[in-house]
């Protein structure tokens, strides 16, 4: 029989890190493939996605949030929202999940060498960016300036918080955080991410801007980037859609004639603006 692309490989949850608590809880799961060969040889690139199965519950597509430089395991950061993610948040270390992938295209890590990278994330949208950011940090001298603009609803909702602090201090990355509404003790920006972007006014010179977050945020971030003088091919985003098969057959994740699962999730605004479709 030809290989069954719907059949997942087994992976063990080897660590769980609680990033955000409360109603919009986010956890990062470290997964290790059970098959020794797969564990050794599983390769992916930043931006690619993976289908995580919970047997008896269902399957969901997540961006891999760890960097490919970290070998022998992968990480996914998941917000508790639907049936699968709720069940995933109930998991504990040692439990088995299914995983198939990696799927989709990726960030152009080769082509972006020697460039400035501007990461603009909102909420859980930082997850796919984290993979690329960590990759860049591991290959710090290949890339020029790294800058992160990140916003969340409240200070409680900021994910990868410690990492941001660490980057700012040690790794020569400019991090600009924001929250939506003023809170006591918050001394960074207050307002939405697009507004923070406008305020910071980054230079488009030799820069690639990569953004991910809620659809409405992406829309205004792109608008603002264009106003700041970024060209269409300097703006990248990674999209999400409801997905079932992950391989371009089941038909639900299309934007125009493009399937986000296999032709995406990474799109330049250049491609996106010509795509007429429901997003």
């Amino acid at each position, binding site marked *: 029989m030809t290989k069954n692309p719907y059949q997942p490989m*087994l992976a063990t949850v080897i660590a769980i890190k609680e990033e955000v608590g409360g109603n919009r809880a986010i956890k990062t799961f470290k997964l290790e493939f059970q098959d020794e060969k797969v564990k050794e040889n599983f390769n992916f690139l930043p931006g690619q996605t993976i289908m995580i199965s919970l047997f008896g519950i269902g399957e969901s597509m997540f961006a891999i949030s760890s960097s490919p430089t970290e070998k022998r395991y992968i990480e996914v950061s998941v917000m508790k929202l639907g049936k699968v993610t709720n069940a995933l948040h109930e998991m504990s270390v040692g439990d088995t999940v299914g995983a198939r992938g990696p799927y989709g295209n990726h960030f152009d890590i080769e082509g972006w060498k020697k460039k400035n990278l501007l990461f603009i994330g909102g909420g859980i949208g930082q997850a796919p960016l984290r993979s690329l950011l960590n990759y860049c940090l591991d290959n710090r001298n290949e890339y020029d300036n790294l800058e992160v603009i990140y916003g969340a609803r409240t200070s409680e909702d900021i994910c990868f918080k410690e990492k941001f602090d660490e980057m700012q201090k040690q790794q020569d990355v400019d991090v600009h955080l924001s929250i939506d509404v003023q809170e006591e003790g918050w001394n960074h920006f207050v307002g939405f991410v697009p507004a923070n972007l406008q305020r910071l006014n980054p230079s488009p010179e030799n820069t690639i801007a990569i953004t991910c977050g*809620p659809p409405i945020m992406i829309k205004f971030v792109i608008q603002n980037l264009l106003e700041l003088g970024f060209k269409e091919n300097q703006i990248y985003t990674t999209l999400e859609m409801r997905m079932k098969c992950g391989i371009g057959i089941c038909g639900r994740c299309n934007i125009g004639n493009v399937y986000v699962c296999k032709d995406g999730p990474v799109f330049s605004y250049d491609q996106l603006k010509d795509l007429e479709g429901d997003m």
Partner: protein
Amino acid sequence: MENLVLSKEKLPEMLTEIASKYALFGPIEENGFTSFKHINNSQEINLDYLLTRISPKSLIFQQTETLFTFNKGKEVKVNTPKTDEAKRVIFGIRPCDARGYSILDPVFEGKKEGDYKDPFYTKKRNRSTLIGLSCNKPDLNCFCTSFDDSPASAKNVDILFTDIGEKYFVDIVTEKGKELIENLSKLFSKASEENREVREKVEQDAINAITRHMNTEGVVKKLDKMFNHDLWQKTAMRCVGCGICTFLCPTCHCFDMQDEAILKEGARIRVWDSCMYPEYTMHASGHNPRPARMNRVRNRIYHKFSYFPKNDKIFACTGCGRCIDYCPVNIDIIDIIAKVKEAKT
């Protein structure tokens, strides 16, 4: 192409022969409509039908399919499901429905090296031999000729039967077809020139009997300019979102995947889904890229007449007319495309 004739009274014998070696599927009438079913007795078959209510895509792209089974709990295991290994013959398929398979092939079998292949579809497709049956009397909403096809087209079948009165005119199209007939050659005789002429006439008569036509010229380009046209809202106003069009369509291929489980074991299955349902694209966050019927109706038309031609160089419509026949609110795809052609942009 080799041409033979089979006299009608020998048909049951042929079917019985085939049924003894293959899993034979054919049209059977039940409860006032025909559908393709497994056939044990050639008497059951009903060739007096025009189109089966549910398209024969269900034979290859089954409505419910087990993708894999699993054991859950402490010892998690994933198992490949048992699949149907039987060689099949699908008898009596109409040329338009056979064309439906050809349209679906690139979706499930991949277009190029390295594309994912759907093993369930591919396997059933490869193991099936199609014996087509030409339509002598097309239906009111038949418009296969609009897609460069004909009611007696042999392009997408392995063998084609055409009713020429007392006999069937038989076109052997592919090697697979030849192989099937080989052992049955005693039932057939060589086709005469006269037979061929009758066949041609039957085909021409059938083509002439088709009254409805869809002009697809330039539609892909036109649709590119019509995404925000109010035609979609106007059409969608009367759509009730029932999804019959997609369930009966021979080229609709969307599916849902769900887990079914009892305490210790279960399976992931896939079932037909429909882009006409709001749940189809609903994100867990509550965001829905296609929140209104307008978006969904538009997506259906675009998928068939813009996205498919762009990706696979073919319109995802066979002209079978099922969606027109069974739409409860008279959403008529011929009419829509005609309106697209007329629309000002």
